[in-house]
């Protein structure tokens, strides 16, 4: 189960991740132990994020992208638990720590939350307290992580609101969330998240609940802030348009695991996994000359309890190989550079069965 605390003491082996890598998630498994059975929401995810870059995690709803994001901050709701895996994070002082091994209620992780890693959520309305002012929530974050007085915190809060483009910031500081529009609320959330200049911003579908123009504004804002501060962004979305716009690297998730990952160009122009290709084909294109039906992936995402054997995508896959895809767990196969895919179409036939490892 969870690694013990002693592991924290010798985490300083920087060999784990190189200097350029901020976050490295290895074979993360987060399962939900419900009365009806175990839901393996995240079941072996790998991702790696470099300093100052943007990594997009894409996938259909229910593929485990949000749980992955929450696992990093250790705010997975009960009855969810990290079962195994590593979340290596390089702190400001260069020390590398494994977030997966921390006590989710402990002091260490609380220093990370909001200080080194911040998060913004899908619903700006419900992620702000209905009975506290925006200002009190920004100031709370500042006072928790920075050694400043209340007045300085307030000043900083005003400048944060200004930074994220909220008009009349010193007045809006005393506004309640219900007095702001959706876009303004998300700006306020970003202000809270960035108040302590985190190294990593996790954005969990931050534009999904917003209308299209506001979406664009928020994306621009995040990109601008990223350029100014040099922070990294882990961006969770199901919208490939957004991915094309902001991503440096992409991880495609299906049923709780990464099926393909690589830089944005190889994913969009040289996609290998049938699922990734199917996703790309499902984007409506206005420049398409032919008048044909929009492609849609056959079947639906299986019920959480009914995960298929072998490759989880095989029942919906056009390139399904009988007796192989439904029995062999595809290993990760490197294509070129950082571009890798988990699909039996690309791994050598003899290599596959031996790789059917049995961890956990």
């Amino acid at each position, binding site marked *: 189960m969870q690694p013990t605390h002693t592991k924290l003491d010798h985490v300083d082996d920087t060999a784990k991740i190189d200097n350029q890598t901020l976050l490295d998630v290895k074979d993360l498994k987060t399962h939900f132990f419900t009365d009806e059975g175990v839901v393996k929401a995240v079941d072996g995810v790998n991702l790696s994020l470099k300093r100052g870059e943007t990594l997009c995690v894409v996938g259909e709803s229910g593929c485990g992208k949000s749980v992955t994001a*929450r696992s990093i*901050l250790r*705010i997975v*709701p009960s009855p969810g638990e990290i079962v195994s895996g590593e979340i290596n994070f390089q702190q400001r002082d260069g020390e590398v720590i494994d977030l997966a091994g921390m006590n989710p*209620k402990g002091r260490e992780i*609380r*220093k*990370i*939350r*909001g*200080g080194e890693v*911040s*998060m913004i*959520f899908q*619903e700006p309305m*419900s*992620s*702000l*307290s*209905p*009975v*506290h002012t925006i200002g009190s*929530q920004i100031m*709370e*974050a500042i006072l*928790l*992580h920075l050694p400043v007085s209340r007045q300085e915190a307030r000043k900083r809060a005003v400048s944060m609101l200004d930074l994220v483009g909220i008009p009349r910031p010193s007045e809006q500081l005393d506004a*309640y969330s*219900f007095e702001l529009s959706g876009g303004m609320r998300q700006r306020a*959330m970003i202000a*809270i998240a960035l108040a302590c200049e985190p190294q990593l911003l996790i954005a969990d579908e931050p534009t999904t609940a917003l209308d299209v123009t506001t979406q664009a504004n928020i994306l621009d804002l995040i990109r601008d802030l990223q350029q100014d501060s040099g922070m990294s962004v882990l961006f969770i979305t199901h919208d490939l348009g957004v991915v094309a716009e902001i991503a440096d690297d992409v991880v495609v998730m299906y049923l709780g695991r990464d099926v393909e990952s690589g830089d944005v160009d190889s994913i969009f122009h040289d996609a290998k996994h049938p699922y990734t290709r199917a996703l790309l084909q499902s984007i409506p294109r206005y420049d398409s000359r032919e008048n044909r039906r929009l492609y849609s992936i056959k079947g639906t995402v299986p019920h959480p309890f009914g995960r298929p054997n072998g490759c989880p995508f095989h029942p919906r896959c056009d390139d399904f190989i009988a007796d192989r895809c439904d029995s062999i767990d595809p290993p990760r196969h490197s294509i070129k550079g950082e571009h890798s895919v988990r699909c039996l179409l690309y791994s050598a036939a003899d290599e596959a069965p031996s790789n059917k490892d049995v961890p956990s």
Partner: protein
Amino acid sequence: MLWYIARRIIYLIPTLLIVSIIAFVVIQLPPGDFLASLISKAEETVDQAQVDALRERYGLDEPIYVQYWKWISGIITKGDFGRSFEWNKDVSDLIWERLGLTVVISLLTLAFIWIVAIPIGIYSAVKKYTIGDYVVTVIGFIGLAIPNFLLALVLMYIAFRYFGQSVGGLFSPEYIVAEWSLDRVLDLLSHLWLPVIILGTAGTAALIRVMRANLLDELSKLYVDAARARGLSELKLLFKYPVRVALNPLVSAVAWVFPALVSGSAITSIVLNLQTTGPLLYRSLQAQDMYLAGSLILLVSVLTIIGTLVSDILLAWIDPRIQLQ
């Protein structure tokens, strides 16, 4: 805020009108007018002139709406609630002290309920599905299931049987009719705990459940995760956000807990023989002393309506969203 309060007070007017009509209906319900029953009850012959004067005063020969008008305007302009024929006194001489004691008991009980229910409710929600939660839940249900008066009877029996004490009443015998003094107040306080506990049991049980359910709702809200993601400690987080939000419905719960308290105290007071409005109402109803009964129903209703108003204003004060609606 002022505008909100003003609007709530304007809303009160139709409510008060309806309440006064209901109270008037209660007065009118027994067959025959009350003068007939007065005359039949009186031991000596009644002076005809006096009867005529009363007839004139309450407009008994006039249409019903005139009677209502005379009655209600007498109350509003002169504080004249009519006359109790059972006691042969003006109603207003009988009710104020009892009404005051009813308010005191109800407020103390309310305070008791809150002080007990909130911490237990929080505990129960945070420790969901643990032994402690189950114990609280079961005790809460039992508290809800025992009628107040039964609890009163059982506690009185226990006190009588095992401590040889006759509990009940709000004063020791020597203070019942005494003038108000510090000693009388202390005596009152030493008698209050039993009725407060008895009256508070059901309300406490109910509010524990409300608090638990509300808090469970709030605990799963996104803003809690967002605050946690900011690095707040679990305890601070709990009290600053979900508990704070979950308290709002609890304040609005006063709107129904308070009427229930006043209402429940009617019966418990009869069993415990408290000097509150309940036993007086009961006696007046049995004796068909209708002006007294009607006035009591009116005043107790007004009392609860004011309680509701206060809780609404409190809620608007602590929850900024309310004023907008």
